[in-house]
């Protein structure tokens, strides 16, 4: 997991530096606990631990290279089909979130559920269609009918 450790530690290092730098724009108040103190402590600690993980990751990666154990380096990586499915699922949900208000719950939800079923490998339309429609109706009845949640309406409902 050396490579992933390096990537994640780099992301969190950048995040900690950015959030630490932003504390300089906070007002300096002469109260017992100024609003800059806790954020600086948290970001400094995050920076330190991210640096440690980065060093560990680099050392692990170098050790793996010298041992020449390619199968070990591959472990923990995401394979290509999984990555594609992962991105498709994220895109499906993102699209749903984007379209929920413009096209309404009743249209957006069965499309989203059908999309997720397809991404999970279901290809049987006679299962996808009833599951997508029925679950939309049941969820609507539950949230709208029982809990009185105003779900986004579409032009048909």
């Amino acid at each position, binding site marked *: 997991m050396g490579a992933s450790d390096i990537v994640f530690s780099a992301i969190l290092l950048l995040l900690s530096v950015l959030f630490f730098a932003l504390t300089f724009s906070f007002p300096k108040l002469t109260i*017992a606990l100024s609003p800059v103190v*806790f954020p600086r402590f948290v970001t400094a600690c995050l920076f330190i631990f991210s640096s440690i993980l980065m060093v560990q990751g680099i050392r692990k990666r170098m050790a793996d290279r010298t041992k020449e154990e390619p199968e070990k380096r591959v472990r923990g990586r995401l394979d290509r089909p999984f990555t594609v499915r992962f991105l498709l699922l994220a895109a499906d949900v993102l699209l749903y979130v984007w379209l929920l208000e413009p096209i309404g719950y009743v249209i957006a939800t069965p499309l989203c559920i059908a999309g997720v079923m397809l991404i999970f490998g279901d290809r049987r339309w006679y299962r996808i269609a009833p599951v997508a429609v029925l679950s939309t109706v049941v969820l609507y009845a539950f949230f709208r009918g029982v809990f009185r949640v105003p779900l986004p309406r579409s032009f048909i409902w």
Partner: protein
Amino acid sequence: MDALIQVLAYVFSPVHFLFLVCGTAAGIVVGAIPGLSGSTGIVLILPFLPALGPTVGLLVMSGIFCGSMFGGSIASILIATPGTPSAAATVLDGYPMAQRGEAGRAIGIALIASTIGGIISSLCMIFISPQLATIALQFGPDEYFALMVFGLTVIASVTGTSLVKGLMSGFFGLLVGLIGLDEVSGYARYSFGFPILMSGLPLLPVLIGVFAISHVFSELENAGKALKRFDQKITGVLPTWRELKQLLPVILPSSVLGVILGIIPGTGGSIASFMAYNEAKRFSKDPDSFGKGNPVGIAAPEAANNGTTGGAMVPMLTLGIPGDVVTAVMLGALVLIGVRPGPLLFTQHPEIVNSLFVGFLMAQFIMLGLGLATVRIWPRVLLVPTQVLLPLILALCLIGTFSSGNSIFDLFVALAFGVIGFFVNKYGFSPAALILGVILGPLAERELGAALIIAHGDWAQLFRSPLALVFFGISLLSVAYSMLRLSRAKKPKSVLPSG
């Protein structure tokens, strides 16, 4: 006495009792489905909590918590895949027993052991919690701050695959918790000019993302794989009195071990079940029969994992520090509906605490009743295809998130934390520490601010209280222990799975 009668009348009122039964049944179902766990089940009911109220909400959550512990054993026994991380040890002897055609007997032993473990842990929670709360009532802001440092450090140290990753998860959670208005000065930190960020990131979408949506992403790795099937008939569930007498000497100490480990923050069912299994094997006259379908190998871990439930509730209720992942989610749920767990809960909302005590104990008997009456039904959930189940869970998560605040922004937050939660689980970081950081961050800063105001800005005051020093000391010890443990292990392995 009047209070007890009131509580009994409340819990046993038909509607509340039905909620408890539904919670326990839902717990068995989510526990039985590999990939889901008690924390996922609790997260899925979070959107309904405001409508249910804190008392009923806690009853339902207790039912899910206890039910999921037994539910996890069903998949372990029938298809050798633990339904929950806590049921991993049950596979060792449960599956060989099922292979011998004794699946019903194995499930029966798991059910009885889980029930006894749960009853013992409920009683311990009922007797220990008020005593601990009385002590905790004397805490000042400095002790509270030290306690929160302790809780976060211990959980970060013992969860995840490495100490550094655990601590990073906790500090990332703290950073997320910093977004929004500072309670002391009223300044909006890290809001980047967006008014929606001034109140901070909403907790419910964060919880749903980290503990539910992330699981849907994780399950993509199994997409297209055939379901594991079982062909055993579930018969002869109820153990004989003679068998029960043989198992009791194992069930009772395992339950107590579970309670003790449950009380220690950051441990939880998976550690307890493996420790109980090892102890049962160590004290057995026939250790070679373990792993080959020995009933003791089922009874010990099942008693221990349900034993942790009541134990884990003790620090959560009395100190506001969760004992494991599920109670970390419960802590978030309570904060979400405006109830802050801690000693004041016992004085300000005794009705909530008392109902929880009675409901938690009752959940064990309901679990036993449901388990015996419908034992042939629960394994059927293993036959539900993931292509159907997971899209439904995702839809429930998204609509639930939307319903909590009628906000599209909440859905973006849930999706973002679903992706973050996936990477946190996948690469050995700690979701429990992350969530604890999000929840405890603002509380810890508030207590620190209050302590400094009382001490007129003197930081040394934080280290003058003996109790605070004890908490800081234990925090350092937990970090040192974790470093020692990891340096001894050549290949670090996860001690506490994320679920």
